[in-house]
């Protein structure tokens, strides 16, 4: 295969850096290398996923086996298990709150976007590093501090925040309300401020890097869909996280300084509180202006990763490259105008509700376009079922089955019945939680060889996939029925209600499935850490992929390419191109080197390519003679 290096571009200043050797601290801890920062985000994300998953097992035990004696958990939970061996009721609220916060922000935002945006953006667009390595490092360390504070709050005497992950006031604003609105809530808010700072620092870096630092020939129309999705995710984050900051700031003032932005006319124990004139719905508006785009911050990177993995392993170009970009753009824009569908029953104007319902249902259009494009890419492809491919197909499955229930929930009339029931829990755990988690897993299995230079064991990967895939459906599918029956979410116990008794066995089934699914993740954990040191050595391009990251050395150093950065001559999806002998043509292969497979309009480009090469050749010669 011909590799023509015509360009004289590239960051020559960088070569100086290769001489000095990093010590342990600059290499593994305070690293400014985007690859190491990506791995730091990944490992921290895995740590938080385990904590978040473990918390969910605790409350699933309570829901599935309400009469169970939990005193065997006392070594871990201590005082949170009462004298009679029951789970403390306030701690239950803290468990669901922390599970939501950890999974949404720490695992699926930082762990997913943080890992893959950092790791893949410079590698796939052909850059030495991020626009600002220092800011990138700060981004990780702000996230780390945020995690530290959140982790510390788990060990408070009164427990961590307990007002639900949305922390609605007045519940979250008044210390007298529940134990979880005391110090735990304060630490939650401080941790979130650090987290917002981390996300903004990261997002600013991602956008700057993608716009300004693409290699020669890497036009926007030649960007892999992963990069498009990371780009739009960062844009959403940049526009929505500041709004969460504003909401949290006012909540801090209400909690600690006595203002009344969200508080009005509250009586506790017959005593009126001094707060007057606040509006709790105001908080909901501000929160969901972040909260809804956050769903897409979580989901878009997973969709981008899936596009890449499915095209590579179907050995076919992605179906509808431009339609994919346009639908992601559409989702990005729509994500900002649908937030009030979370508030249909908040007492808001029903007419306004109809507007938001209409806008919400429009999201089905770009989402369906994406699903059809995945299916048509898979259709008649030469499918290679790597673990990453299976997880990607799993994502598509969850995206369909979870997305369909979104059409129900988006209706303001049906939402009156379904609001805050387990139907909602089932919906968003499938379409946002599990789909994004499967995207994350697909990414880890697919890019592990690039991260660590070794392969993960695919047999363990298959076991992990099937247990998780079946497990997720076993957990969340029955929840739809429980929700339609009217079970409210976040309730400690339902056994007091007669209508709820008939679902005890279903809840037990869900809890057992959840425990099995959680246990299956340890297969992945073993595979991940074992393969990091003992895995089979990775070949140069294990998935025979077109994108730029596979043109770097197997273990790329700081700066990614030892020589010049390769130029890009084509889009990243030239798989099984008719006429070509090879079934994939990397982006670095010029059109002039593949006359047998060029399309008519590409032949035109070849002429120009040759012309440019000739001109650059003259420049090169001139430069040489000047020396």
């Amino acid at each position: 295969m011909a590799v023509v290096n015509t360009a004289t571009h590239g960051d020559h200043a960088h070569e100086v850096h290769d001489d000095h050797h990093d010590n342990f601290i600059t290499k593994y801890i305070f690293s400014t290398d985007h690859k190491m920062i990506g791995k730091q985000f990944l490992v921290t994300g895995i740590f938080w996923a385990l904590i978040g998953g473990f918390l969910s097992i605790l409350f699933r035990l309570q829901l599935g086996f309400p009469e169970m004696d939990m005193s065997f958990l006392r070594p871990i939970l201590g005082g949170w298990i009462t004298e009679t061996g029951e789970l403390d009721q306030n701690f239950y609220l803290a468990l669901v709150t922390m599970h939501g916060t950890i999974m949404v922000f720490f695992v699926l935002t930082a762990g997913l976007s943080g890992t893959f945006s950092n790791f893949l953006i410079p590698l796939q667009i052909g850059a030495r590093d991020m626009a600002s390595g220092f800011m990138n490092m700060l981004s990780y360390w702000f996230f780390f501090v945020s995690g530290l504070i959140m982790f510390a709050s788990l060990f408070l005497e009164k427990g961590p925040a307990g007002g639900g992950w949305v922390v609605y006031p007045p519940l979250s604003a008044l210390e007298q309300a529940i134990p979880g609105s005391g110090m735990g809530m304060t630490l939650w808010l401080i941790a979130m401020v650090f987290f917002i700072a981390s996300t903004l620092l990261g997002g600013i870096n991602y956008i700057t890097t993608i716009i300004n630092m693409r290699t020669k020939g890497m036009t926007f129309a030649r960007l892999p869909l992963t990069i498009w999705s990371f780009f739009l995710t960062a844009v959403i984050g940049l526009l929505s996280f500041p709004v969460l900051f504003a909401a949290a700031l006012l909540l801090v003032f209400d909690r600690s300084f006595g203002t009344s932005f969200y508080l009005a006319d509250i009586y506790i124990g017959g005593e009126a509180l001094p707060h007057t004139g606040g509006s709790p719905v105001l908080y909901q508006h501000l929160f969901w202006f972040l909260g809804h785009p956050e769903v897409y911050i979580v989901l878009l990177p997973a969709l981008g990763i899936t596009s890449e993995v499915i095209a590579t392993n179907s050995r076919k170009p992605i179906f509808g490259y431009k339609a994919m970009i346009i639908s992601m753009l559409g989702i990005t824009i729509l994500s900002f105008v649908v937030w009030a569908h979370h508030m249909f029953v908040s007492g808001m104007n029903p007419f306004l509700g109809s507007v938001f319902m209409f806008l919400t249902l429009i999201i089905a259009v770009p989402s369906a376009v994406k699903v059809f494009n995945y299916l048509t890419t898979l259709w008649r492809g030469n499918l290679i079922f790597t673990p990453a491919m299976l997880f990607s197909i799993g994502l598509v499955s969850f995206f369909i089955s979870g997305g369909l229930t979104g059409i129900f929930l988006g209706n303001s009339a049906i939402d009156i019945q379904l609001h805050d029931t387990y139907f909602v829990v089932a919906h968003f755990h499938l379409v946002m939680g599990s789909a994004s988690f499967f995207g994350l897993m697909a990414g880890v299995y697919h890019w592990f060889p690039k991260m660590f230079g070794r392969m993960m064991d695919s047999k363990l990967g298959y076991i992990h996939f099937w247990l998780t895939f079946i497990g997720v459906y076993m957990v969340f599918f029955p929840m739809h029925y429980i929700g339609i029956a009217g079970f409210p979410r976040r309730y400690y116990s339902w056994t007091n209600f007669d209508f709820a008794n008939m679902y005890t066995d279903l809840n037990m089934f869900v809890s057992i499935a959840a425990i099995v699914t959680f246990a299956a993740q340890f297969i992945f954990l073993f595979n991940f850490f074992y393969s990091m040191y003992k895995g089979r050595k990775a070949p140069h391009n294990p998935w025979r992929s077109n994108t730029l990251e596979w043109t770097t050395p197997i273990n790329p150093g700081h700066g990614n390419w030892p020589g010049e950065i390769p130029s890009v001559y084509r889009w990243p999806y030239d798989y099984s191109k008719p006429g070509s002998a090879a079934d994939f043509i990397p982006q670095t292969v010029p059109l002039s080197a593949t006359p047998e497979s060029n399309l008519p309009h590409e032949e035109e480009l070849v002429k120009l390519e040759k012309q440019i090469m000739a001109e650059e050749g003259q420049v090169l010669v001139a430069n040489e003679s000047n020396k």
Partner: protein
Amino acid sequence: MEERLEYIEGAEQPISMHPKKFALWLFIVSTVMVFAALTSAYIVRQAEGNWLEFNLPSVFYWTSAIIVLSSGTMHWAYTAAQRDDMKILKLGMVLTSILGVAFLVGQWYSWVALVDRDVYFVGNPAGSFLYVFTGLHALHLISGVIFLIIVLISSFKYKIHSKSMTRMEMCATYWHFLGGLWIYLFMFLLLNH
């Protein structure tokens, strides 16, 4: 011919803007979103009634004049740097920094004037919002003054001239933005209080 131009454009290394300058613009976008959220919250809350009416401190007119003037001196210093006119650059930067501090002092007196009107941070949200707007803007302005002083020091070290303008350009962009942000907030308050 046209087609050829297009292709060359596509093949060139697409670095279009200094990454740090671009990052500053993105930071400005996120700041705009914070204030857009707060002012929207103000409108939503105001529409619900139970709203305290009071006159805005007249000191806001003075501070607005000061911040507009400081944008003028900033631009004066900026064009001086482009012309390598070091004397005017230093003078302009000193003036801008003094005006920046004067603005902050003026904003403090606006709080004093609010307290005189019996409008406190704790109380009806109409007053609390005003403290949050001015306070959060003042925090940003303090960061702007620090940036001004950094550029001021480097201009005295002759590190800012027509060949090295990045920091100066970023400082000017940020300072004009902060001025514009205040004018927006003031206009917003005039129209909506």
